């Protein structure tokens, strides 16, 4: 790869940046743990798609209609 090419310079920016991080390493670790908790633990186990669970695909409108029209 040409060392003066735009793509190499972008790659070099990120590579060097990540290599020389100090505080950034701690912050990245926190971000990754947080993303894991949010997207894997919370989303999978605690936040299912309620309508997706209770209505067949393509019949979501009927499910919501029932919910809205029968609720007082």
């Amino acid at each position: 790869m040409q060392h003066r090419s735009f793509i190499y310079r972008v790659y070099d920016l990120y590579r060097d940046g990540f290599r020389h991080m100090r505080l950034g390493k701690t912050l990245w670790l926190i971000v990754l743990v947080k993303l894991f908790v949010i997207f894997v633990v919370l989303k999978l186990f605690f936040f299912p798609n309620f309508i997706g669970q209770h209505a067949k695909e393509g019949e979501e409108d009927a499910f919501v209609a029932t919910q809205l029209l029968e609720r007082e």
Partner: protein
Amino acid sequence: MQEILSTIDTGTIEWSRAQFALTAIYHWLFVPLTLGLAVIMGIMETCYYRTKDVFWRDVAKFWQRLFGINFAMGVATGIILEFEFGTNWSNYSWFVGDIFGAPLAIEGIVAFFMESTFVAVMFFGWKKVSAGFHLAATWLTGLGATISAWWILVANAWMQNPVGCEFNPDTMRNEMVSFADVALSPFAIDKFCHTVISAWIIGAVFTVAVSGWYLMKRREVPLAKVSLKIGAIVGIVASIGAALTGHHSAYSVAQVQPMKLAAMEALYNGGTDQSLTGIALINPFEQPDYANQEEPDLKIAAPYALSFLATNDLHGYVPGINDIIKGGYINAKGEVELSLDEKIERGKQAITALASYRQAKKDGADETSLASQLAIIKENMPYFGYGYIKSADQIVPFVPVNFYAFRVMVGMGCLLILFFAVILFFVYRKDITRAPKWLYLSAIVMVPLSYIASESGWLVAEFGRQPWTIQDMLPTWVSVSNLQSSSVMITFFIFLALFTTLLVVELSILFKQIKKGPEYEQV
């Protein structure tokens, strides 16, 4: 309340509301500091770009480091709100359809590409890109965050003032008919300006507080001196800007959410020439007897100020809670306002017509019959939510929260203007490095106080629109999913633990970095 919610557990509604409030409040701890510090670090780096003095580069790097910590802690905390829509608020989530989806999708794309690209250049690119490009990246990082805020606030503004949409009874969703009306509604613009400017205040207060702490400790004096000056200038400009945009926001609220304004003011019975309440005695724990009380006890008010705030006319008409329930006055659109009973009737017509339409469609009814039902739905859809209302009490937000939160926000706003003015007095007329200790301490105390002011603004905005998740179209008890309250309660406490941990981690890293101070590079 229990009686009218026969098919849904009241606990589910309350825990879902509490969970959403908790998540939003915590999310809002990170966002304003990101938006505010973006301006501060942009100014610092601009000074470096103009002077080429490495001192300014070190100053800019220091504030960028603190920005980075807050940015990392706050990133993705807003995603949880979207999870809650899909699980706890599924009816609402479906009902809003692509109106909400489009701004949030744009926000996600902009946030990901713009912020991730320019944040990387800002942190990694000091020795890799030109000074001009780096400066542009720093400002674009802030601009990316601000554009993200724009789309989120557009979505929020639509809930408060649903425009640019049409309800489709076949899909049971609202469909966008005018992107411009949704994205550029005056309500959204006012909300954006007021919210973002108030975020700059948080950034300014934080900058002044950190600088004040350094000056109190007699360390990092050159950095603290220039930072405090820039922070105070940004702060006073933003505080005055927040007051002006606050006036516009109040005017917008008066136009489209008069009940919120009446609750903010504890205005039970309105009229022309209305005065703005400075303070009054209202029991903070219970809803006042607005139906029988003329006005709150011990009311001290500024004459004509509420009329001016709500109508831009000292003699303008401002409806009170009872007026809105009774109707019959000329509203902001120049039309006769319907009474609550009339709105309930029209809401019921919309619900009945929707049921008839869907049944007729299922039965294969002819086009004429469907068209007549469609016409009824279209005509009455703006009042759809009123079809679920059983009594007037249900459409009145909890007055004490709105009343006191509004006063905390405005009072703190005035205090902030005074605070920044005093700081600037010491900067320009005295020696800020030798100011009395109380001034530095007050700067530190202003950080939590400015957050309280900011969160109070959100309390006014969100408590004031109760019971509506979508103004006049959908109340909370219809929006919520038919979940067990215990499951929502569990996730509430998970979030409480998660966010508190994040906050403690952020504060500990922030304090450590502030104690460590800037890193001066040798030339």
